[in-house]
């Protein structure tokens, strides 16, 4: 499998959108995203057939800037493959959801695909410079998508989001440059993840680099106290961009925390893990309690994302194989679930013109399809068995509980407690929006989902169910990779 395809398809899609007229842009975008999904599934199929599945595969390494030892080095392991599949699923759904965007639709789809292209490039890069290039590629799409097509205080939210994420990437950049310096001192100047993992940094060097890399990526995954961009950004962004921000962009952060910071600096990860666990637990509970107070269902999902992504950081910081696998599963599960949630919230808003839960009511009677999807997303969020959320959170808890000391177990229990809060806000939201009498007369006339919305929701729901009912093929594959990454050097 040639991984360049995963860059080439989005690039060609972008070109196609540029050349297409306003009406055809969405068709090109959809075709491109389906092609990308196909390529991703094919890659999964080939990867699972490999004898040494779990290791880095399909590698390609070209010298890019020899003077700086920058290589175009790409390759995937189980974690990146899972992330790529997640991204392509969300991309397909995002394009479908935005099918009827009328305002500057060509630009909209261009930016959406560009955002995805950055994520794809990020997940396949093995060279830190290349990875950073793709990481930063998202800056402009994010800003413009929110500022132009957003709602509410969109300009403020766009600027805040971009600047906070840029602040995060500034930290990441310092970490990367620090690594380069240490690699020069060790006589093997490199940006390559594989080379750098053999660097044998001293404890002191690791302790210096780790906070930069980890915190930098953690800004993106909305770890408390760096989460404040998330509610503003998610609630102001247009539907597809919210899906993308919460579903994919936050996962870039989690992936970076795991695959770069923790992988390269294992000793420092051990040293800092109590602090990170504490912050993650605060984030999980804080996010959950703040969610309780939200009237706006989009804002509710934005805050609940902060809470759910806390589990990702928690799983990573627990540093056991199971917990880390759980963190990856949680990234995928939350990515799909939150995309579904934002999609369905967007669809409901488009019809009811309100996002305040108490102004809705009885919507299930008029839009049973959307109502069902809303319930499925909710149940996934609160971790009902059979859906992906249960698998992921359960794996994190089991992995965390493998620690036998009081601190880790207490942290696990605190995090677990948040599920109760989650159940409260989800069930309440479902109750006030879907059940009960229809509050406004005009709601009677609302239509249910159209074909594109049904398809988008269908793809996401199927992914959730597959992951929830048959988790082991995925978790075993990811588990092998985490084992290789974090025990074998």
């Amino acid at each position: 499998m040639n991984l360049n395809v995963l860059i080439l398809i989005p690039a060609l899609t972008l070109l196609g959108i540029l050349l297409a007229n306003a009406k055809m842009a969405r068709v090109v975008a959809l075709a491109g995203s389906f092609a990308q999904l196909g390529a991703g599934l094919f890659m999964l199929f080939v990867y699972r057939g490999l004898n040494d599945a779990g290791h880095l595969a399909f590698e390609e390494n070209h010298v890019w800037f020899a003077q700086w030892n920058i290589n175009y080095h790409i390759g995937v392991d189980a974690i990146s493959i899972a992330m790529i599949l997640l991204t392509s699923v969300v991309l397909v759904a995002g394009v479908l959801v935005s099918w009827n965007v009328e305002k500057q639709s060509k630009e909209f789809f261009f930016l959406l695909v560009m955002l995805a292209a950055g994520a794809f490039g990020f997940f396949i890069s093995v060279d830190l410079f290349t990875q950073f290039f793709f990481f930063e590629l998202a800056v402009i799409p994010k800003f413009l998508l929110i500022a132009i097509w957003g709602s509410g205080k969109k300009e403020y939210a766009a600027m805040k989001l971009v600047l906070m994420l840029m602040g995060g990437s500034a930290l990441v950049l310092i970490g990367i440059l620090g690594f380069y310096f240490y690699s020069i001192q060790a006589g093997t100047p490199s940006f390559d993840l594989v080379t750098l993992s053999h660097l044998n940094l001293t404890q002191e060097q690791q302790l210096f680099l780790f906070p930069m890399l980890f915190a930098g990526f953690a800004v993106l995954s909305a770890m408390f106290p760096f989460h404040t961009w998330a509610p503003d950004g998610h609630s102001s962004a247009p539907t597809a961009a919210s899906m993308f921000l919460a579903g994919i962009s936050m996962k870039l952060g989690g992936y970076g925390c795991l695959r770069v910071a923790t992988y390269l600096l294992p000793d420092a990860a051990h040293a800092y893990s109590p602090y990170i666990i504490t912050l993650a637990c605060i984030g999980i509970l804080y996010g959950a309690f703040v969610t309780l107070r939200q009237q706006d269902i989009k804002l509710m999902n934005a805050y609940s994302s902060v809470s759910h992504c806390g589990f990702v950081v928690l799983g990573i910081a627990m540093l056991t194989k199971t917990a880390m696998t759980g963190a990856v599963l949680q990234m995928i599960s939350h990515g799909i679930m939150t995309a579904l949630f934002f999609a369905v919230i967007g669809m409901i808003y488009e019809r009811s013109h309100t996002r305040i839960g108490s102004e809705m009511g009885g919507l299930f009677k008029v839009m049973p399809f959307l109502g069902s999807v809303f319930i499925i997303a909710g149940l996934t969020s609160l971790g009902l068995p059979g859906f992906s959320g249960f698998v992921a959170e359960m794996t994190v808890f089991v992995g965390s509980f493998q620690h036998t000391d009081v601190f880790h177990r207490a942290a696990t229990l605190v995090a677990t407690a948040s599920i109760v809060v989650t159940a409260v806000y989800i069930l309440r939201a479902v109750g006030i929006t879907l059940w009960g009498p229809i509050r406004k007369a005009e709601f009677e006339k609302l239509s249910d989902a159209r074909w594109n919305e049904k398809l988008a929701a269908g793809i996401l729901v199927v992914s959730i169910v597959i992951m929830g009912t048959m988790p082991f093929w995925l978790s075993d594959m990811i588990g092998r990779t985490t084992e290789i990454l974090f025990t074998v050097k």
Partner: protein
Amino acid sequence: MMNYLSMLRFEFLALAAVVLLLLIKVFSEKTSSSLILNFVNAFLVAILGVSFVGCPQGTFFGGMFLNDGTLMLEKRVITFAALLISLQGYTWLKEHSAYVEFYLLLFSVLIGMYFMISSGNFLMFYLGLEMATIPLAALAAFDFGRVRSAEGAGKMILSSAFSSAILLFGLSLIYGSSGSLDFQAVSDNFSSFNLLQLLAFSFLFAGFAFKISIVPFHLWTADTYEGSPVAVTAFLSVVSKGAAVFIFITLLYKVFGSAYEKWLNAVILLSAITMTTGNLFAMRQTNLKRFFAFSSITQAGYILIGVAAATQQAMASVVYFFLIYIFSNVGAFTVISVISDRTGKDRVDDYKGLYKTNPKLSLVMMIAVLSLAGVPPTAGFFAKLFLLTSGASKGMIVLLIIASLNMVVSLYYYLRIVKAMFVDQNETPIHNFQSDFASRLVLVICVAGILLTGFFNTIFEYINSLSFGI
């Protein structure tokens, strides 16, 4: 004789242009302006073309004039920038009453810069510097009708004279302590700075800081940039700064290279102050030319990272950064010039809603501005990261932290322009218009340069092969 001509080809050709223009001015007053403009631009292309034929190395005038591949490359970069700016000003100059004089002065400036870059002796260096500075001040006053243009030129000539005086004082101290003005001889004498030499170096450094507009010697920049005609502003921010940086690097590395530790911290400190100050002021600007003045001060701060790192790759990244900076800045200034020519508007607020009426210009402006901010996929990202990486290879971690944070701040104000063009509504937007061919050509070249230069390593490799460190 052939060797002589070949080594001095830039200087001779520019001189020939000056003589030809003088003759035209005297003998054929009636020639149409567009013909002469086309001729001049063709001449600049010819200079560039000729520069690629062979590359003799050697010295002239008893070591006063040097030539090698590196210097040729630097002159090429400068000529290229001058060509772009000349094309950018095409429409403006066609209507201008004194367009021949404009080019007379421009070519004189270029001759001065060529000699300055090629100098092997402080005397030649100073001669070139003055030759490049005084006509430039005249150029800054070329908007005859506007008082601000004259004011900007006045500020420039005064501060230039002041900085030249400081520089000269430094040079005389250098002569006093080493008994020679020859680069090689001075270099041999300056291996360990004594107090007098330190003083001499500081004055020389301060003189340079004026030319490159490094904080705290930047105060003339904003007023001059705002007052000058757009083409001259672009010239000041790109060509003039570039030439000064090139000779600055040569001096630091070749003449004062053995005392690297002595001046390293000064450069690091100034780099941090310059980028931070430039950023803080740029945030508050409403006039685009002033805005780009402060943005160019910030960029000078980044350049100093590469200057401080002082390796072969570091110098290569400085030159590379300049090349990208030419594309980005000239691109942005061309948009400003096209719009202010048509509408007279040059405030950030005037650009609100530009995308609705002039989508192409807005896209070019966005790409240029993002390149200045260092956002991928523009080449500015590569250029800036190379500078930072060169700093990292010397372990300047504090400076890198300051630089990275400054990149975040600068993104804020660059995005303000993007926001104005793409997001904001405007009751009275700039109306749609078709820009002239020359401007469009420049815009296409700049956009192509910004989008393509980064991905291909050949350009950086070529520059690197001609660079040197300490």
